[in-house]
């Protein structure tokens, strides 16, 4: 039982970081209807921003944390302007967006390899290594911080989407971009906001992820799991992405705790295939009809 609870806590903590990443995929999908594979690159850059702000510029952690989020947000918007805007103007089919995103992701990964180098880098210890003990449970301070910070960010995001005017505009654009433009919403600005918000959250998630594990250029291969979580919860749905991520995190840690950690990734992909066969729109995705 203690073991189970311990795994559950670890799963919640990693799941909440997946959620921070997954909402970025979902936000972009809800408006632009394509899977933004460059998101992994933005997460990776966020992790590097944080690393250099802390080690090179010796910024205190909260400042470095927020600064890396902002930088990642700017990066995401720049990517949108360069790689997706021309395609949008041309009304290109979704595949071109995906390929463009893949190109961006190849570029981001390798520019880091070419300039900074492919070595693994470890964040300096920011939180004490001594876990908090509750009964027989050990809760790592980093794990706790990951969960708390992610929960705050996600809460803020849901507030933004559900209770503000910008959020309403985002929802309207996601529902029908053309109609919302006719209602006076500047769709282009909404897209920039969406990329900025997704990018900021990706940057924050990157720092948290880098703190818990290590930073290296191929981090994007791991963040693909957050994409799986987004599909699992239903692409295009923010709440779905959060629930999918938490579930994926928990299932993954439980599986690696009880079977073998080797099968951790395999389980994630098996889950992806299973959900696509059983319920392709995910847990909370909207069912779309084939328009003809």
């Amino acid at each position: 039982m203690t073991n189970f609870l311990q795994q559950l806590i670890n799963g919640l903590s990693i799941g909440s970081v997946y959620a921070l990443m997954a909402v970025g995929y979902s936000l972009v999908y809800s408006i632009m209807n394509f899977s933004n594979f460059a998101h992994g690159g933005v997460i990776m850059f966020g992790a590097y921003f944080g690393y250099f702000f802390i080690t090179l510029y010796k910024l205190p952690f909260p400042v470095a944390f927020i600064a890396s989020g902002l930088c990642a947000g700017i990066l995401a918007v720049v990517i949108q302007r360069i790689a997706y805007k021309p395609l949008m103007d041309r009304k290109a089919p979704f595949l071109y967006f995906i390929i463009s995103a893949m190109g961006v992701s190849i570029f981001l990964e390798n520019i880091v390899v070419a300039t900074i180098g492919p070595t693994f880098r470890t964040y300096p210890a920011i939180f004490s290594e001594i876990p908090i003990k509750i009964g027989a449970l050990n809760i790592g301070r980093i794990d706790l911080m990951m969960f708390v910070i992610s929960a705050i960010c996600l809460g803020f995001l849901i507030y933004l989407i559900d209770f503000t005017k910008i959020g309403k505009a985002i929802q309207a654009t996601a529902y029908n971009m053309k109609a919302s433009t006719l209602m006076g919403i500047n769709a282009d600005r909404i897209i920039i906001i969406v990329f900025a918000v997704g990018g900021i959250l990706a940057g924050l998630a990157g720092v948290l992820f880098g703190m818990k594990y290590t930073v290296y250029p191929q981090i994007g291969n791991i963040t693909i799991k957050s994409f799986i979580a987004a599909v699992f919860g239903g692409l295009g749905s923010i709440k779905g992405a959060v629930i999918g991520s938490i579930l994926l995190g928990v299932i993954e840690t439980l599986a690696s705790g009880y079977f073998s950690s080797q099968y951790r990734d395999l389980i994630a992909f098996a889950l992806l295939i299973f959900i696509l066969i059983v319920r392709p729109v995910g847990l909370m995705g909207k069912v779309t009809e084939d328009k003809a």
Partner: protein
Amino acid sequence: MDLSWYYLKGILMFAGINMIPVLGLALLTGFTGLFSFGNAAFMSIGGYTTAFMMINLGVPFIPSLLMGGIIASLGALVIGKCTLKLKGDYFCIATLGFGEALRLILDNFQYFGGARGWAGIPLKTNLTTVIVIDIIAVIIMANIVRSRHGRNMIAVREEELASQVIGINVFKTKMLSFVISAFYGGIGGGLLASYLGFLQPKMFALTKSTELIIIVIFGGLGSISGGVIGSLVLIILPELLRSFANWRLVIYGVVVVFIMIARPEGLIGGKEITFKGIYNLFKKIAKKNKKDLDTTREGGR
């Protein structure tokens, strides 16, 4: 830069080997309108089957290669059964999932060497084999595209619902295209296995599938010659840039984005290069030269 024949031959063979899965994917993506991010998985099935047949069963090279293609097609039959009903993006993602899942299974399957890889595969691939197989592959593909099934595939690509209404079995057409593309992938994987003499699951990761689809798009969707030229250019060019080492892939990424935003129709954009076309082109040039010659003569008079 050292451009010895040996080195050049290696690159040509590598481009020729990659051309086969690219042709398969060109049928699936360019002519049927399905986007797969998992075709590297078929290469791995073909590669591992060929290696297994040759090493463990002592079967000669060509039958092993064909067996690799057949097993890959069987794999496609199973995967297609589950995923071909999915629409657009979701089919992409499902094939991505299958591809990565297979790689992770091979990573953990110690019989084939696991993640460390499988060495000691007999080196049977040579330039002649590759060229002969490439030519056969192109001829077969050209015939498939011009057959009734090929036209059905194009109809499905253009308007799925409409083609269903006029009596095309959409699912079956997609399945045929998927299975053929897997067969091509399997053959390519088998050739690769016996060219390198070494297999590692990492070689068939998502990056490889992405590379294949990028080559198809770079060459031009809906064109066989596009696939051929695309694989020659995109495999040979990065090899020649090898002295740049790290910056090579950076440039590669930029080029991919640039093609998407500046020339989405690809290198030759849906056209085909045929012998007849080349003949006509030469005739046209000859005619023009003659005409130019005539006009200059007249001018001189």
